Every structure is written in C-alpha cells, then in structure tokens.
C-alpha cells in the first residue's frame, strides 16, 4: 500500500470518527437548547473538535511530503473531484428545501452545522474514495 493510499484510509477513518463526534455534540446541544452562559459549552466543544482536525492536518502534511510525482497528480485530481462533490452536495442541500418547501418556511438552526459537518464528511469521503479508485485503476493499468 502506497503512502497516498495509507493517507486516504487514515483521512477516511479520521473524518468519519470526527463527523460522528461532531454530530453527537450538536444533537446534544440542540437537545439541551444551549443559550447564554451555555455558549461556554460550545466554546469548549469547538477546540475539542478542532484539535484532532489539526492533528490530522499536521500528520497529513508529513505524509504528503513523501508523495512521488504520480501520487501528487492523483492527489490534486482527487482534490478537484472532492471540491466538485462538495459544491454539488451543498447546492442540493441549500436549494432543494428552498424549491420544495419555499423560502418563507423555517428550519431548526441546528441543521446548519449538521449540513456543514455532512459537507465536510462528503468532501473527505469523495477525496479518499477518488484516491483509492484512481490508485486501483493505475495499478490495473500497470
């Protein structure tokens, strides 16, 4: 398994775990209906969520420095695929309710961070999946 594939698997697992923690935290805060002083709770949750993300970013950088030319090309291509997937996902999530329910209807605010975390998860999932698929295709071609 190449460095790129290891990195893809690591990101896939890391983002899945973080996404689950983030979703659980948001649902917990929504259930508690946190307000006022309880914003402190949010301020604690943000660094707690951000620190593993930073760890992943730093670790990813150290892995990426060992990529060869072919892996770099696959990485940048998969990044574009992920960006495309992210844009399509966000466009669908934001536009469909507008056209189906109408602009004057309301949604609960805790759906917004859920949408955001889902978008992050989708982007990372597509990125990692694209890397693994492209690597598999290149391996098949020899």
């Amino acid at each position, binding site marked *: 398994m190449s460095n790129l594939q290891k990195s893809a698997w690591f990101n896939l697992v890391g983002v899945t775990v973080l996404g689950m923690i983030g979703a659980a935290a948001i649902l917990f805060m929504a259930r508690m209906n946190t307000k006022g002083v309880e*914003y402190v709770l949010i301020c604690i949750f943000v660094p707690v969520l951000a620190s593993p993300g930073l760890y992943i970013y730093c670790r990813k950088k150290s892995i990426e420095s060992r990529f060869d030319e072919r892996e770099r090309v696959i990485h940048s291509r998969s990044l574009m695929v992920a*960006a495309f997937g992210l844009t399509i996902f966000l466009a669908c999530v*934001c536009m469909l309710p*507008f056209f189906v329910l109408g602009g004057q209807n*309301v949604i609960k*605010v*805790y759906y917004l*961070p859920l949408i955001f975390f889902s*978008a992050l998860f989708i982007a990372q999932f597509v990125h990692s999946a694209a890397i693994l698929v492209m690597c598999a295709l290149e391996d098949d071609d020899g």
Partner: protein
Amino acid sequence: MTKLQKIALLNLILAGICLVLQLICFVAGVSLISLFASIVILVLGCIMLVSYFRRKRLVKRGSGEYDERDKSIHTTAALYGLMTAFMVYFLTTFLAFLIVGPGGELKIGYVLGMFLLGANSFFFTESAVVLFKYGWRSTDNE
C-alpha cells in the same frame, strides 16, 4: 491585459457588486428592495456564468492563449476560491448557530442566501487571485 485577465477583472467587479447586494438583501429582509437586488444578482450571476464558459472556450482553443502557466494559476485560484467559500459558509453557519441558538429557527431563504454568499465569495476570491498572480496591470505574461 490578456483576455483571461479581462474575464477575471469582469468577474471580480460583478462578484463584488453581488456581495454588496446580498448584504443589502440580508439587512432588508423580505421587501421590494431585496426582490430588486435578487433580480440584479440573478442577472449578474448569468453574466458570470457566460464569462466562465467563455474562459472554457479559450482553454479548449489551446496553446496560444492558455498554456501550462495559466492552468497552474487558475487551479491555484480555484483552490483559494473554494477555501474562501467554505470559510464563509462555515462562518455564516456558526454565527447563525450562536446568535439564534440551537433551538431557534431560521427561514429557508437565508440558507440559500448563505450558499449564494459562499458562491459569490468563490468568484470574488478566484478572480482576485488570478489578477494578483498575473500581476496587476501587466501587459505581457512572460
């Protein structure tokens, strides 16, 4: 100034106007002013879309007007644009979450507004980075 720079400059101006109009829409709420601003945003968005396809045509035409350096500049600019759009979306989501509170409700129109704000930020940053990378007011690309 090359054709690519002219397109980037046009996009920068249009995206800037769209951003200002969107802020007016957010402040004005549901009113005739925001309706008029939304129509103008739609028209300007169509112009930006046309300029995007015009750039695509230039890319397809090949070597003379779009070389490896242009490709690299536009890829970097697109990545910067995506990062900005995602940050804007994150900030608006987070602000709505903090101001309204997780138990609160938000009109669906605002969710679409957040997405459009992110999209405009993408065009604005991408065009600004393209112009910055080429060098403001440069006449040759060598």
